[in-house]
Each structure stands twice: as C-alpha cells, then as structure tokens.
C-alpha cells in the first residue's frame, strides 16, 4: 500500500485543560478500508473522529486528510462527512431537503436538476425511494439512520465518519445495518471510519480495528489478529470474552513461559512481551479454547455452576477450586445431548498454544484511570 493514506495522525495530542483525551497518536488509515476505532468510553476515540471532522483542533501534532494538513481548516471546508450519533437530522426539513442540504452548499452552485437527481440516487441507495417528502419525526430509528447515511454520502466525501451510528438501534436492526454498511462501503469504495465501544460490532464490520485505551492506540490490526493475538492484557480483556488467570512466571523457554497458577497448577503459555522469572502475570484463556469432558483428564477439575444455552453454543460457568470461576464455551450439535448440567463435576482442558501470558500490573491501573476519564468527559 504505497498510496497516500486517507487519514493520517502525526503525533497528535488533544488536551482539555488538565485532561489529556488523546496522547501522542500516530496513525495511518489506508485508502478504501473500513476502519473501526474501538475502545471504552473516554478512551479518546470520539475525540479522534471529531478532529478528523474539524470540530476539535489537536493541541499538538497534525491531522492529514489525503496528505493535506488540516490545521486551521474549518469543518465546512473538509472533504469528509459525518454520520452523527443520534443522526442530528434537521427537524424543520423533510427527508429530501435533509439529503440535499450539503449539495445546496456547494460552490459553484449545482443546478436544481442535478441536486434533485443526486438526492434521488442517494435515497434509492439507502432504500428510501419514495420517502423524500416525509418529515423526519415520521420516520423510524432505522429509517432516520439511512437518511443520515444518505445525507453524508450524497456529497461524495473522501472519508465517511460514523460516530456510534448503530447505538440507538435494536439488536435485529443493528445486525441488518452492519451488513448494509459493509456492502455500502465496498460498493462506494471510500474509507469508512467507525467509532464504537461495541467490540462485536467492530470485529464484525471492519477490515481494520484500531483499539484505543487511555488516549493511546493500543493495537491496530485485522479483526482476527486483534482477537487471536491481542497486544496486551487490556485488548485481550476488552475484545471478546476471556478468562484471566493470575499466576507467577515459573520458567522461561523461548516464546513460551511456564506459569504457576494460584492453585499450584503449572501451565505453558505464549508471551507477547518479555517476561522475567517470578514476575506476576495474567494468563488469558478464551472460553472457546476450553474443552469440557467427563472427570478424569484435563488440566483443571471443576463443578458446573451455571449453563447458558445459546442455541448453537452453550456457555458454562465452572467453579475451579483455588482459581475461581472459568467461562467455557462449547459447540452444540443437534441430537448429541452432551450438555453438562449445573452441579456436575467436569474436567477442563485446553489446546496447547491457546493460553497467552501478559504482565499483570498495568491492567487494573489503566482501567481505573480510564473510568475517571470517562466521568470527567461525560
């Protein structure tokens, strides 16, 4: 990818008084990609989006759009458009007037025929043909969402910014819109930058996920990379569900470490960062990498406490003496009545290579600071 990145952050820092919302971010978003900025509230993802849109100015560093430094360029001169949280549609205009609002601002002026034509195209693109004369308050949430999309895309922006666009929709509609957004992005071929706190949404829709925490980019990668090879304990914990087991490094051998857990069990785990003998670590074990079987074998022995049947899978909360509660996920095959019942003893095993060890200390500290940030900012 030698092309100029659509969006580039160079050493960008944003402070609000004493609070640093974004701290020293370098980021290049490749052209024609669907990118998600993912993180807990207060992590700086919305601030980043608003700096691209021009609603906030970086305290330090540069934001570039298609190679051009945007310092001092107001929002109305930037080649990007935003789909706002809760859409921010104009209540005094009807659907078509909302969509053509941006076209009417263009200088030199567009002919009214062209405006009508392009607004009509945008309406059919989001499957709202025939809704042009409706008032905004007459539309459902999903329809308003589509109007907001059309209103932004009709201006043919270089980059489309989406600020938690699906947060206000119910689950079923959200899934439909996820697919539709993905299709739209492929059809139009421009870069979409999506801000979300919903890791499932980020993983399912985007080509790249940029995980943020504490005003920094923690990891940038494809969804499967983020999920399978989290850069640190925060990503492992925030993206997807995982079990975190505390222990101490008992031995080192190449990429692997032996970790002695609280109950005395020693397991072998992969490491992402250098660790030293005796260091306190957390081992991440994804629920789906755990396998359950009748007592007798496996690394741990435990007792099923809860069973959550989800149709295609079942999740088990299993009490393991000395370690605590573990979450395990097992596929459910129709007709194979191999469900464990609450109260039943089970043996838990896991595939070699599944456990990942991270230094223990930095996790809780960062998280707490994050929560304070979120409170101050909201």
């Amino acid at each position: 990818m030698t092309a100029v990145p659509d969006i580039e952050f160079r050493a960008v820092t944003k402070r609000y008084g004493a609070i640093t919302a974004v701290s020293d971010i370098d980021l290049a978003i490749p052209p024609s990609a669907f990118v998600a900025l993912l993180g807990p509230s207060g992590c700086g993802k919305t601030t980043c989006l608003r700096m691209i849109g021009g609603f906030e100015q970086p305290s330090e560093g540069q934001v570039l759009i298609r190679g051009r430094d945007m310092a001092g360029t107001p929002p109305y001169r930037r080649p990007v458009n935003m789909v706002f949280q809760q859409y921010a549609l104009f209540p005094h205009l009807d659907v078509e007037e909302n969509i053509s609002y941006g076209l009417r601002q263009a200088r030199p002026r567009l002919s009214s025929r062209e405006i009508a034509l392009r607004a009509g195209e945008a309406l059919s693109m989001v499957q709202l043909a025939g809704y042009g004369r409706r008032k905004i308050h007459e539309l459902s949430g999903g329809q308003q969402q589509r109007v907001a999309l059309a209103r932004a895309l009709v201006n043919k922006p270089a980059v489309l910014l989406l600020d938690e666009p699906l947060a206000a929709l119910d689950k079923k509609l959200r899934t439909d819109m996820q697919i539709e957004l993905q299709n739209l992005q492929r059809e139009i071929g421009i870069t979409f930058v999506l801000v979300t706190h919903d890791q499932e949404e980020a993983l399912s829709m985007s080509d790249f996920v940029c995980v943020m925490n504490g005003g920094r980019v923690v990891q940038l990668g494809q969804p499967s990379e983020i999920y399978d090879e989290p850069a640190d304990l925060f990503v492992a914990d925030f993206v997807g569900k995982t079990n975190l087991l505390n222990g101490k490094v008992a031995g080192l051998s190449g990429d692997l470490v032996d970790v002695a857990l609280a109950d005395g069990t020693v397991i072998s785990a992969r490491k992402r960062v250098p660790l030293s003998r005796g260091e306190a670590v957390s081992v991440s074990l994804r629920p789906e990498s755990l396998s359950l079987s009748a007592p007798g074998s496996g690394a741990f022995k435990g007792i099923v406490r809860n069973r959550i049947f989800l149709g295609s899978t079942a999740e088990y909360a299993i009490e393991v003496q000395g370690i605590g509660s573990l979450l395990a996920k097992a596929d459910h095959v129709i007709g194979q009545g191999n469900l464990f019942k609450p109260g039943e003893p089970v043996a838990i095993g896991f595939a070699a290579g599944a456990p990942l060890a991270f230094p223990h200390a930095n996790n809780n500290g960062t998280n707490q600071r994050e929560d304070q940030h979120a409170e101050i900012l909201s």
Partner: protein
Amino acid sequence: MRRSLFRKNLVTALLLAPATLWLVVFLVLPFVAIAVFSVGERAPEGGYQAALTFAQYANLPARATAFWNTMVLAPAGALACLLVAYPVAYYLALRAPQRWRLILLALIVIPFWTSLLMRTYAWMYILGGRGIPALLAYVGIEDLRLINTPGAVLLGIVYGYLPLMILPIYVSLERLDRRLLEASADLGATPLSTFLGVTLRLSLPGVMTGFSLVMILLLGEYLIPTLLGGGKVFFIGNALVDLFLQSRNWPFGSAIAITLVLVSVVVLIVANRISTRLSGARRVDLI
C-alpha cells in the same frame, strides 16, 4: 366501566372549574358586556343607553390617528425590540459561559422588580429638557427635542418590553440541538448559512412568541405614549381611557375595544401560521 368513566369526567370537571369560573366572570362576561355596549348609544348624560346600531363602528375613522399610531408603532416597537433582543438572546444561549448564564438572565429580569411607571418616569427626565438635551447643549448641540416624539415612545417601548422578547427567543435557542449546527458545518455550510438555515429557522417559534407577545401588549399600551409621547403620540389605549373616563362615551369606546381585540386575534393567528410553517414545529410554545 361506565361508572369509572363518569368519575374520571367528574374529576376533570372539578379540576377545570376554578379556571373556567374565573374566565367566565372576568373575561367572557365583560367581553359580552362590551360587545353589547358597542352596538348601543351614548346616554345624554354619558354612559350607555340600549340600542341596536352600528353607528359607533361607522364612527371609527374619527379615531384614525390613534389607530394609525398604534398600528405603526406597535409593530415597529416589536420589531425594534426583536432586533435588539435577538443578539442578546443568541449570546446568552450559545456563547455566554455556562456559569454566567443565570446571572445574566437575572440581570435582564431584575428591572421588572421596579414598576414600569417609575422606570418610564425616569426616561421622562433622561429625555426631557434637563436630561440628554442639556448635556448635548454643553457640546454645542442646541434645541434638540427628544421627549414627546414618536422616537421617544419607541425607545420607551424597546426599553420596557425587551425582557419579554429576550426570554422566549433565549428559550428556543437554548433548546436548539448543538449537533445540528455541527451537522450543518459538516455538510459544507458556512457559519452564515448555518445561522440562516438552521439557527434562525429553528428559533422562529421563540421569535414569533416574543413578537406577538410584545405586539399584543403594545396594542393596548397606554402608559408609555402618555409619559413619553406627551399626548402628541397617542395610542388606542389613550383613546379608550379618554372615551370611558373623560367624555363617557361608553358605546364608542366599546366599539374601539372590540375592534382592537379582533386585530389582536388576527395578529396571533398570522404569527402562529408563519412560525409553524417556517420552523416545521407543530406547535408554538408560550415561553
């Protein structure tokens, strides 16, 4: 089922009774009386004498000056108020620091704590011979007459009614969703077109509320023209006082009053229509 419905209606009726009674006794009955008076005749010794004639209405042109002054100065006064009030309301709602907002709002309302009569008297002195004209005489500007002119009346009107204009506009601007302004900028609108296309349009209900409020009160204004217009600029209000208390021509006064009420109603309906159409709002809130 039917019983509970009956009970519900009874409660509704009881809740509405005091207000209804009040309005019937103090609004509807006097209005009916005035309407009856307006088709009557003046008794020889003054007051009312029963008759059925529209002579009083035919005689309205006799007070054309009062009507003319009112019909020109009331909208002009409301407009002047609006032009002064909008920037203030805009500053308060969108620009003023949050913690100053309440204090500034209070400062706008505080003059209401003193009677309008006193404050208008103060203006009499400020504009009168020993006020501003005396100061201007020091720098060589002689013989400037400020008091007892339409300009003085207009000034008094803007001064007296400004808070009534600021508050509804402030409320509508304060309710304005700031993200709409960002959305407008995002779509390429310059600050000026955002103001015209979004801010102004969405604050129109407030503008219309303020405008009709001030306008209607001005249609019945009596005090300001008397004190600052010096009998030279008289309003319908002055004509009414004159007719009811001095010449005791109740039927003619009633005819003028009825006409005034009709004009006010028309003003309200028109203002309401305009703001509903332009802002897309379905109703206009009175403050």
